[in-house]
């Protein structure tokens, strides 16, 4: 079934092992987290059941003028031009099927943010002002946050 580490509320720590390769973390006999044989970390944390958690594999918060406030698994950002950035990953994604989400802190205008050019080593982010009269204008110096999930 699984090797189990159980925090028993009466008798303290109980260990039960087998050879399946799965590891369960229990409290009072109830599984709260699991590492399965594929390496998936499963946990509850208010989700309602023990299920695989999908990690944020890269993130960055930068202003639009060339300062990275903080980041994780990001080697750099490339300022390609007005409102046009590339987020470069320190450790590449395993494929191009990840999800990249971006937002801007600009509260004065309606903004259009797109992520595109997904490759394993980077993703591009473009920030535009929305012009209701037609067309969009690249946004000058807008702060931006990007998170990549896989």
């Amino acid at each position, binding site marked *: 079934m699984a090797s189990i580490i159980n925090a028993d509320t009466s008798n303290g720590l109980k260990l039960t092992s087998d050879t399946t390769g799965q590891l369960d973390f229990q409290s009072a006999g109830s599984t709260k987290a699991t590492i399965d044989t594929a390496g998936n970390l499963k946990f509850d944390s208010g989700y309602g059941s023990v299920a695989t958690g999908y990690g944020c594999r890269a993130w960055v918060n930068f202003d639009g003028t*060339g300062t*990275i406030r903080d980041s994780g698994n990001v080697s750099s950002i490339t300022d*390609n*031009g007005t409102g046009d950035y590339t987020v470069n990953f320190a450790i590449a994604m395993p494929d191009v099927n990840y999800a990249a989400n971006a937002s801007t802190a600009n509260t004065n205008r309606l903004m259009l943010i797109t992520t595109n050019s997904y490759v394993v080593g980077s993703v591009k982010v473009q920030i535009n002002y929305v012009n209701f009269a037609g067309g969009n204008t690249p946004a000058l*110096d807008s702060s931006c946050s990007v998170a990549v999930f896989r």
Partner: protein
Amino acid sequence: MSRIIYETDDGGVAVIVPAPEYLLTNTIEQLAAKDVPAGATYEIVEDDVVPSDRTFRGAWTWV
């Protein structure tokens, strides 16, 4: 902190801003080798070389 600049295919200038975290364990030369597009000529400069006035950012050229 240093920046890496290179000329883009359309004649503009791209500026690579290193993540401080990355430079804790890597050099800026290693970063350039990883993040500058293959075949592009680049230069490592101090950040004050990059203009702070970005009003005409799209018109920057590398001379």
